[in-house]
């Protein structure tokens, strides 16, 4: 009680840091946690069946792969790394062996890159494509990693292989993603939208992917209205996709429309990347929830640091820059992040943080990337121009 008083007298300065203490709930019916996948769901039933089968025969590669794939899909949809761990557990007998069967090796690579072990993943993918040069899945993940590492020559070679061995949409998806990143957004847009029109039976998940990319390409060509149309068409498909929501939220935030972000993301507070966007919107609106959400994000980044994770440095940089106002830390994180990931959004946060710190030298790697790739995004180009003006 005395400490309560002290809290009151010091306006909470001393006690603000105190964490809510563990407690014993008063009511048995109190709901403590909601499971993301309800036990009655068809997915949950299928997972239970596969887990039971694998438990009786843990070295059954077919069952293990099927279970790993189901968890991998769930990881993508829910964005929860637990499922990557569950998938890894399913592959347990093949996880540490030097020469696993081809399919296990590819799956292992996919799971490794999820933990940002890009070099480990690439080693497995190279071995897999050597073993079977027509493994389209392995080639497409090679392309994905090469894109993240901004190795565009290697990515182009991967896409060329896909042209020969994969379906039209896959090959075109690969090439246009690369082209749109490297300064040929208009042409990429024409090709990709043409292929989508020719493949009306495409699954909704892939349509969401294509439409999100088309929206990004539109933005790179300064066509805001068209981008919004694509985003809305993708949202109308009703697929749970964090990428789409994140990209759409960024679109709205960039255009000063935070009020539309709040209802969109209110239910997604578990997702760090979407909670970040929600908090940004709430701060722009001066909403009272902002404070609570900023605190939650801070705790999660602290927990990640405790664990030694560096998976979210891009988001953490943005968090520090715009929600905590710690420009110095934001820049340090953005620079660190750039060493691992070099996609346009990674460049963006590095340029923004460097501009906020008035430190154009720190942005040099991103400026060089912009020159080398020929990336067209007008916003990134604008940031680069401001940084160059600072330099001179």
């Amino acid at each position: 009680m005395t400490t309560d008083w002290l809290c009151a007298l010091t306006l909470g300065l001393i006690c603000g840091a105190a964490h809510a203490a563990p407690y014993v709930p008063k009511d048995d019916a109190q709901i403590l946690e909601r499971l993301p996948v309800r036990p009655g769901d068809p997915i949950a039933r299928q997972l239970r069946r596969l887990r039971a089968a694998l438990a009786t025969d843990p070295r059954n590669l077919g069952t293990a792969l099927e279970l790993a794939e189901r968890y991998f899909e769930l990881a993508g949809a829910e964005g929860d790394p637990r499922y990557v761990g569950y998938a890894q557990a399913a592959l347990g007998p093949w996880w540490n062996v030097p020469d696993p069967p081809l399919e296990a090796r590819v799956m292992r690579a996919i799971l490794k890159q999820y933990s940002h072990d890009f070099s480990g993943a690439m080693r497995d993918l190279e071995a897999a494509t050597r073993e079977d040069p027509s493994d389209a899945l392995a080639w497409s993940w090679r392309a994905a990693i090469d894109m993240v590492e901004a190795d565009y020559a290697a990515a182009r070679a991967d896409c060329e292989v896909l042209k020969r061995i994969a379906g039209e949409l896959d090959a075109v998806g690969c090439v246009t993603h690369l082209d749109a990143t490297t300064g040929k957004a208009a042409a990429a847009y024409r090709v990709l939208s043409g292929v989508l029109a020719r493949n009306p039976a495409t699954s909704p998940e892939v349509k969401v992917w294509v439409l999100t990319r088309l929206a990004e390409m539109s933005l790179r060509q300064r066509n805001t209205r068209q981008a919004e149309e694509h985003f809305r068409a993708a949202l109308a498909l009703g697929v749970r996709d964090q990428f789409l929501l994140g990209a759409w939220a960024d679109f709205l935030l960039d255009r000063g429309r935070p009020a539309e972000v709040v209802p969109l993301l209110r239910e997604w507070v578990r997702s760090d990347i979407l909670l970040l966007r929600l908090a940004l919107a709430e701060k722009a609106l001066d909403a009272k929830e902002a404070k609570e959400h900023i605190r939650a994000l801070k705790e999660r980044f602290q927990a990640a640091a405790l664990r030694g994770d560096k998976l979210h440095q891009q988001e953490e940089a943005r968090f520090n820059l715009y929600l905590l106002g710690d420009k110095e830390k934001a820049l340090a994180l953005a620079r660190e992040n750039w060493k691992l990931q070099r996609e346009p959004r990674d460049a963006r946060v590095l340029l923004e943080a460097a501009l906020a710190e008035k430190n154009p030298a720190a942005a040099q790697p991103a400026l060089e990337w912009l020159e080398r790739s020929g990336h067209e995004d007008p916003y990134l180009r604008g940031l680069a121009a401001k940084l160059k003006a600072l330099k001179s």
Partner: protein
Amino acid sequence: MKVFLALLLALGATSALAHKPSDSYLALRVEGAGVSGQWDIALRDLDFAIGLDENGDGDITWGEVKAHRADIAAYALARLKLRSADADCPVRSTEFLVDDHSDGAYSVMRFAGNCPAEVESIEISYSLFADLDPQHKGLLRLEHGGATRTGIFGPERATQAFELAKISALDQFLDYGREGVWHIWIGLDHILFLLSLLLPAVLALEAGRWHAIERFPPAFWDVFKIVTSFTVAHSITLSLAALGVVSLPSRLVESAIAASVVLAALNNVYPLVHGRRWMVAFAFGLIHGFGFASVLRDLGLPEGALLVALVGFNLGVEAGQLAIVSAFLPAAYALRASWFYRRLVFIGGSLVIVLVAGIWLIERAFNIKVITP
């Protein structure tokens, strides 16, 4: 396999993982041969491992968690091995609670146990969820002798040993001394009691009216007597209570402390006792000592270094007290003749103290909350 789907989604799907991964938080405290701790484990993870959602509605209720308390303890403690000097240190769960972390609800299990001998190094083997989720990590905070160390456990680092530095008696003494200073500083009721007795030290009561005293020495000696007798008194009861010779119910002690503050402050407004305030300080000091003892009990007294801790803590309290007095006395002496001191600080301040302590008294005596900050 849905190759077609996976192909396209590969592009741009890296860094898609937007959640906090699975972690547990293990706090371990080693003292002598004893180990105790708290282990926070996400309910989602426990549900995956042993199934908590009995009725399958996707919601985990407190009732469901409570029903599985024993299962959770058995499952978790079977995956935590503590060893010291090549012998097991068996622990068992003592308390079961829940807490909210940034990513959801966690079960909180407190546990305690003993190693065969005083722990000089401890080996911790952690294998929680290692078979289910190799990405799971156990985040350890290991406390020993006032020092905290951290560690990260995972399948690739499942067993780690920690050498525990021998804590010198001096370190322990200083540690408890610091705690003593800190507790007098945040123990607002003790400070207010002392201030109530000290406020009149620079004034003299003549014919029912307060006057500023003319010389410093009498004020100093007055304060000296009050502080000394308060100190002697609370040292006596603090020692007796800490050593377990006497124990009083904490509600009674806390209420009596609040009452002592009310009476001491009230005495300034309606003077009953003036010349012998040191006796008041002594009498009520006995009560305050029991209050300090409860703080010391919460801190935990080290076996084998009881006396060191007790003396350290007590001296810490005195040092904190002395700091307050040495800030108060010169200021009060300088201001003693002013209207500001005599009316506002002395009478006004005393009335505020009466009010605050009166609320404490009601709260503590009836176990209610009048003001919730």
